[in-house]
């Protein structure tokens, strides 16, 4: 095979293969964190008194879902959690356009009444500012 043929093959494989792989990878992630399933699981957790688990599912959904706003709207009665979820979305590698800066939302969450949520917000703030809190925190939805 000539060098030119090899280069052409490489570029074609990288472009088409890459596009196909990216499509399937994103689909698998979205499908694994399926919004409808998540919503019913959150409802079940709330009804059975597992509010912390429900909160963790909300955070996971906000981090991976295509439409995080849908989830955030469900907690409009809890400003602290709403602020934290907005911060989580802002921390995503694929941060949606026009999304606010995470620091302001985290400050709001850190001042909220729920101590465990406030602690997480404070730790995330520390990580954003000084990188001394929890390594890779920005890549993990907690």
């Amino acid at each position, binding site marked *: *095979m*000539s*060098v030119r*043929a*090899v*280069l052409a*093959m*490489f570029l074609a*494989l*990288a472009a088409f*293969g*890459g596009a196909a*792989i*990216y499509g*399937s*990878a*994103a689909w*698998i*992630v979205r499908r*694994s*964190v399926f919004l409808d399933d998540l919503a019913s699981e959150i409802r079940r*957790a709330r009804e*059975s*008194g*597992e*509010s*912390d*688990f429900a909160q*963790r599912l909300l*955070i*996971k959904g906000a981090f*991976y879902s295509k439409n995080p706003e849908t989830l955030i709207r469900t907690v409009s009665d809890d400003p602290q959690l709403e602020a934290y979820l907005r911060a989580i979305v802002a921390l995503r*590698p694929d941060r949606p356009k026009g999304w606010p800066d995470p620091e302001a939302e985290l400050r709001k969450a850190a001042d909220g009444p*729920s*101590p*465990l*949520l406030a*602690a*997480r917000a*404070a*730790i*995330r703030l520390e990580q954003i500012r000084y990188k001394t*809190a*929890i*390594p*890779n*925190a920005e*890549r*993990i*939805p*907690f």
Partner: protein
Amino acid sequence: MFLTNAGRLLIYLSLAVLPLANAPLTGDTLEVKYHLFRILGVAASILYVCHAVFVRPLRDPDGVDAAVLLSLAALGASVIFSESPVGALPGAVDAAGSLAFLSLTRRVFESDHPDGPEVRPVLWVIGASMILPSMMFVSEQNKWGIGDTLGNQNVVSHFLVLSLFAPLFALFAAHSRVKKGLCLTALAALLWLIWLTAARGAVVGLLAALALIALSSAARHWASLDRPYRLATAGLCAVLSLSAPVLLYRYATATDFNVSVRFLSWKYSLSLLADRLMLGYGPGLFAASFEKSKLWMTTADSNLLGLLTVNYAHNDYVELLVDQGALGLAAFLTLIAACLLPPIYRWIREPARAILPVCLFLSLIASLTQAFFDFPYHTPAPRCLFYVLLGLISRRCGSNLEPRTSVAPPPPPRSESLEWLRAFLVLLAALVPGVPMITLYAASALAKVADPTFKSGRYTEVRNFFSMASQLDPTRGQYPFRQGLGEEQAQDFEESRRAFRRALEFQPYFPNTFFHLGTVSMKTDPARAAAAFYATLAFAASPTTLHNLAAMGLAIGDSPAAAAIYTEIARRYPADVAAAHNAAVLKQMGRESAESETYRRALDLYQKDRYDLAEPLAIAAVSGRPGDPDAMFLLGRIVFHRGRHDEAGGWFKKVLAVDPNDAEACYYLASVFFFQNRLPAALDMYQRADRLQPNSTRILFNLGVAYYSIGNFSAMNDCFDSTLALNPNVSTRPKIEELRRAAGGRGP
């Protein structure tokens, strides 16, 4: 010439030693093979570079050279942009060493003929090197007591599939019947062994390879075949072409745990590319990266995969994709195509030549198909053999050869033994630069030694062991992690935290490290510990993590969240009675706390005479604490002051039913009777209140008023006298005097 011979010697040595190398100290056969492969890979790189510089410069790179360069470029970019470049170094050395073996083979086995005689020793070496692993496998299979990882089923099957070409080539090349019979027996034995290893991928791979060979043969001979033979050939080709997919479908749809687990590991490995598509996570970092997929893995899949440690993707293409991204995989596939397509094309065009390329093609296609189900190119021996065979099939033949143009006069001829001696010395010199990699093996040996020490609780020694191992091999996150465990057990939390943070640089998604990062902060910084436990739970829930998190919730005063976490534990792990109990206690405490807060606020408003606001809170307090006399009494007083005496009387009666000696309730009930004009009942109740709480000016005054109402002025006067005796300046004195005047003018 001696450089060429040194290269050949290195290839013979690698093919002979890698399948046989066993671990004398760590007992981990694969581990020692990895280190050995790296040393040999470095030597192959050095010899290739020397050959290119001193023997024949690379003046007309062909497609394979270009593909190798692309692979190296993709590899380098993947390491540089990896999340852990240091951790990716061993994997990068493995990959670069493999490419060096391929390129070196192409250089040192150049020939005028595709079936050149210089390849024969390779066949003998491969034939000899597969004997011992095969014997070990058979002995393990039959439980003859020689169990050893040397006979590991996967490694043996990978190696044997690649080795198939040797007896096949010998069969075609043999001229006498005896030799043909021997070769056929060896081939049959080899196929039987592959069948015994239960390597389904190998069986599918062999069928696929046979189909390709049949199709190529049909294409080659089509013009010379008669019509009946053409039909038979087409039928055979069709059967062979369909058999591999059919068998694959059969395996895929079998309700086999092994197969379903493989599909799951592929699925979630692929999903990792959503973040780092082009360059992947870094060579050799698959196992560390796979942990990341647990962040979005569904619970059902997590439960199934949780039974298996996913160290390999069980599909080398997927693993390469995760390691080096789309660029790495594209470069690998381009390399395969560049190596395999020209020989097959040549074989079809030149029927008389190239038995060896066909045999090699069969082995390589079988192995490449097997790589869809297994990890042959991530274990050293099959990996080395694969790249050597790729080099052999793609080596330059005939007209492609270009002798080195040199202005210097040709060297005087030397004796052959002197040439081989020089080649041996050069090989030794090429092996020396890779020798420092022995320290990596020393580190793993040290880690192995430290294991029993850790189990016996000698933590100070453990710290030192793993600290030394970290220094010897700074590319592995396992050592700082274990050092951190030792520090944690020895109560040196600050040092432990540092070690865990260092471990996370190599394994950024290892939930266990986040967990221990939490446990070391539990005493000093509950908020930080809680955040670390939340990070752990993002990957997977475990009872210990949830318990620790609940404890941290209580430590920072979030008992509602702690109660919710205990409820979750009780649901997930019904056998955990303590969690259910804790949840119940915390819920009760929370309820009581909330109710007492409601009662306190209602009382506060009552005392400020805000009866309208106090009433709903009091009702909430009564419904939250049914039967509580305080709440009922408060509600009774509120409705009494709002003029609903009948309703108030009902509440006071309920209070007295709970506590008949409550003087205040008696007093208020008496007042209710008084307002209802039930004077005897009111008098009776005031007297009872007076008995229960003597010397109360308020009760005595109201008792006097009641006596006045029924006309018993003498008793009235006694009550008023007692009241004034207790407090001459009582606020009701004007009223007393007024009533006395009304009763007949008797003064005090």
